[in-house]
């Protein structure tokens, strides 16, 4: 990276994405911007996409591990021992 003073002379953008929802907001409208809740949710999910995509694989790995197999066995036993209503 060059000196901050050099880039600051040129690198201002008229629009910047909102940090909360990712929407493109003009510089003169940033004070008035209100995030659309749906867009904010979509943006957050997009940022978490790798974790979301990896969840199933992580869960499968856990269930295949000794700890996961024991947890399944324990849950099944607890279910069997619950009093029937």
């Amino acid at each position, binding site marked *: 990276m060059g000196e901050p003073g050099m*880039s600051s002379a040129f690198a201002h953008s008229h*629009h910047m*994405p909102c940090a909360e929802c990712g929407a493109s907001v003009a510089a003169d409208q940033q004070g008035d911007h209100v995030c659309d809740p749906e867009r904010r949710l979509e943006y957050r999910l*997009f*940022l978490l996409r790798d974790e979301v995509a990896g969840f199933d694989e992580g869960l499968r790995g856990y269930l295949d591990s000794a700890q996961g197999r024991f947890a399944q066995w324990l849950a099944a036993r607890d279910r069997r021992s619950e009093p029937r209503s």
Partner: protein
Amino acid sequence: MADAKMIVKRLIEEPWKGNWDVIDEYAAPGYVGHDSAEPEPHRGPAGLRANFEKYIAAFPDGRITVDDQVAEGNKVATRWTGRGTHTGEIAGIAPTGKEVTVTGFTISRLEGGRVAEEWTTWDTLGMLVQLGAIPEPAHA
């Protein structure tokens, strides 16, 4: 024959809507496109389409809107604004989910009702700042 401004407007806007026919219809077989962001010109309708596809892959919901046009002789000058959400890789930048807005200018030279050559300059630096690839400077 369609109006020169309309030809250029359609060639700039329509591919972003998936209307690829406009390239065959309005780009000359010997089309040459000079882009300030590219080291080499795009050659032929196929080169033009490949350039669109690269940006559309990065901004699938992207749209370009023509803001103003001036025509003189066989040339049309166009001021445009592009806006789209970054959900595909571009310039080595992994998808950020951020929406960006950039502006640009294109001068188009027409021959026989088709665009033969174009010179485009657009706010590449602004795109990189908006995507966080270049830090936003502190405001004074």
